[in-house]
């Protein structure tokens, strides 16, 4: 009894709660726990999962990035257009990474150097970048000429599609970055107490610029994989992604007030979002009711986590 309580309320409580919920879903929802469905589910969260890695850093350092959806669409677009134009997939990828990184860099510089509110800045770049994507493509999707491009998403390794591997590798890398490196600790420090970090000699504005630039790069990776999966560059892709990603992070215990983040939490947050969607479709829940259910699941998930941390004596 007490050990169960300990397990639930401990550091890894969220993971435990998630495992229990997963087991219940697996036992009750038909077709859920099949290899096919699991792979499908994982693929469906690739974009959110990858982008959540850097969003975690962004939120942990008390920043905010609304431009991720646009950047994913824009860099996917660029990847397709550049590789169509040059005939080389590699050049396409490089172009996409450059563009994504550039968007992130601009965000970072404007926010950290000109000290402009992150919400407004990224709301602005969100629109500007979406506009650029639309202008570049004249508002229409751009098809991929070289079928080799599709292989990025279609290829498999050990029976598991490449995008899932990429996501998994990102989870590992960014988990390591957060917990084991100076970069990660400085990120948490900036979020936890910017003033103290500055007084301790952390170069706060350079850190913030780096985080945003990284975010841009990571969005480009997600954009390329997305374009490959949907076999075209779509200027309207990934709208609303920002809110899903931020929700996944917050669900996973990342604090919007900065300073608190954990990779396992974010992974769980991402999976909760994916599973909710997946199960609702498996159960054939009507579209309008899906809205309501999605909202309720979000509420329930944070409520549970809150009860847990309240019981554990932390501040709300």
């Amino acid at each position, binding site marked *: 009894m007490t050990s169960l309580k300990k397990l639930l309320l401990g550091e890894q409580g969220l993971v435990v709660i998630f495992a229990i919920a997963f087991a219940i879903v697996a036992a009750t929802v038909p077709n859920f726990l099949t290899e096919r469905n699991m792979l499908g589910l994982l693929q469906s969260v690739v974009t959110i999962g990858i982008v959540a890695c850097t969003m975690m850093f962004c939120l942990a350092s008390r920043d905010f990035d609304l431009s991720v959806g646009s950047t994913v669409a824009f860099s996917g677009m660029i990847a397709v257009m550049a590789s169509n134009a040059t005939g080389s997939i590699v050049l396409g990828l490089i172009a996409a990474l450059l563009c994504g990184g550039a968007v992130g860099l601009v965000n970072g510089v404007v926010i950290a150097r000109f000290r402009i509110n992150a919400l407004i800045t990224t709301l602005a770049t969100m629109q500007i970048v979406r506009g650029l994507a639309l202008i570049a493509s004249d508002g229409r999707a751009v098809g991929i000429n070289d079928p080799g491009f599709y292989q990025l998403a279609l290829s498999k390794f050990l029976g598991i599609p490449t995008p899932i591997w990429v996501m998994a590798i990102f989870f590992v890398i960014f988990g390591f970055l957060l917990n084991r490196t100076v970069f990660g600790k400085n990120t*948490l*420090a900036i*979020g*936890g107490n910017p003033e103290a*970090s500055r*007084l301790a*000699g952390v170069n706060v504005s350079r850190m913030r610029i780096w985080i945003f630039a990284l975010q841009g790069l990571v969005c480009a990776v997600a954009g390329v994989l997305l374009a490959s999966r949907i076999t075209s560059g779509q200027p309207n892709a990934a709208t609303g992604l920002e809110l899903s990603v931020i929700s996944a992070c917050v669900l996973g215990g990342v604090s919007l007030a900065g300073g608190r983040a954990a990779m396992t939490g974010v992974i769980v947050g991402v999976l909760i979002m994916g599973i909710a969607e997946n199960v609702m479709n498996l159960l054939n829940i009507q579209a309008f009711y899906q809205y309501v259910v999605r909202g309720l699941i979000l509420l329930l998930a944070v409520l549970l986590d809150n009860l847990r941390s309240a019981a554990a004596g932390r501040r709300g």
Partner: protein
Amino acid sequence: MQDFLEFKAISKGYPGVQALADVSFSVKKGAVHGLMGENGAGKSTLIRVLSGDQSADNGEISIDGSTQHYRSVRDAFDAGVIVIHQELQLVPELTVAENLWLGRFPGKAGVIDRSRLTNVVREKLSEIGIEIEPGAKVASLSIGERQMVEIAKAVMADARVIALDEPTSSLSSRESEILFSLIERLRSQGKVILYVSHRLDEIFRLCDSLTVLRDGKLAAHHADITAVTREQIISEMVGREISNIWGYRPREFGEVRLEVKDIAGRKLRTPIRFSVRQGEILGFFGLIGAGRSEMTRLVYGADTRSQGTVSVDGVEVVADSPPHAIRGGIVLCPEDRKFDGIVQGRSIEENMAISSRRHFSPFGILQPKKEAELAEQFIAKLRVRTPSRKQDIVNLSGGNQQKVILGRWLSEQGVKVLIIDEPTRGIDVGAKSEIYEILYELAAQGMAIVVVSSELPEVMGITDRIVVMCQGRVAANIERDDFDERRILAAALPDVANASELPNQQVQ
């Protein structure tokens, strides 16, 4: 010996305030140099300039003969300067070790060497006698422990110049002793130490030389502290003589005003009961962590009570939240002004009127004139140093912020019970005696007052009765006639054998 650290004609102004005006003095190698002055005199500003955090408008600093041109905290650090600020500068979400290494983590290629991270810290901490687990999150430490972590920063960095801004204001005497011996050791290593404090006996005990600031200007410089007296320093700071700082006057007590029966809460498990009469000032004394602050929070309804009742004038106050307590006539001045006291971003006036304005705001509509009058009145009465009542409270010096919070409750109406947790922490000598005067005045009007303090002389000097707490329990209840330092201390100590745990004892 050589002048090692030199301030040359330093000036620094903020809108409406000349925080430092043409301040010059120098400190020798291997010396502990005291820095004193009233609240708002410019001590912290000078230290911030030294730390590279703020740049002076004019003047320069030289260390070991070379003029410094640093533009950031980092540069100052590289030049061998480390500063322990008046406000804690820790990241609560990180561990003790991580906080101590912040800004210069050990490791290769950006990967932190975790064993070095904790081992070095463990070594250093035990070397200086601080018993804190390096892996503990700072958020889980008490204020005193956090202050020790802050101080440990000075040891972690191999600095030539160390500045400490009011480091003992939230330390227990045992912790203070650790700090003092640490300072001795640093002095013997030939470092320069700049030491800011409002406690004269600390200054006399530690310092070799002393500078007094007043209104941002150099008021006095004493190259040899043994050549000055307390009285002289006080008048240099305050500009007048203060003969008896306590100024205690006996009073008549009336009926029981505050009656606390068997209250307990999550952090205070043993039920506590006590009562205070009209006109009585009751002191609570104990070591840090004895549970005094927790007790005050329970009475005030700031934390949830698991049991017990609180009544005022025989009427039970259902104080399950501060508004209820206030309506029942109980108010609390919290001990942690930064987190529980000041409302950042708002003016002095608003910080003062936040509670009392409901009495003179018909239908919730503000009366700006009344608020202004009130603010002006208490700014004058408490000698708050500020260019205007509209000043954002975060721009005030630490001591002046504390005065504004006091003003908040002094301006409240219908108060029957005033609870003050550490009333004079960080407050200068001059203002201290004014605050005591105000307390006597209120008591004389029939208010019941509870004063929680870690300074034994203060509790003994101003209260009518002392409740001593120890490890969450009431250990003794002593009337003024029976006040006796030894007896009080004996009651405060968890274990008589552990006699090193003495609280601050400075008698002035």
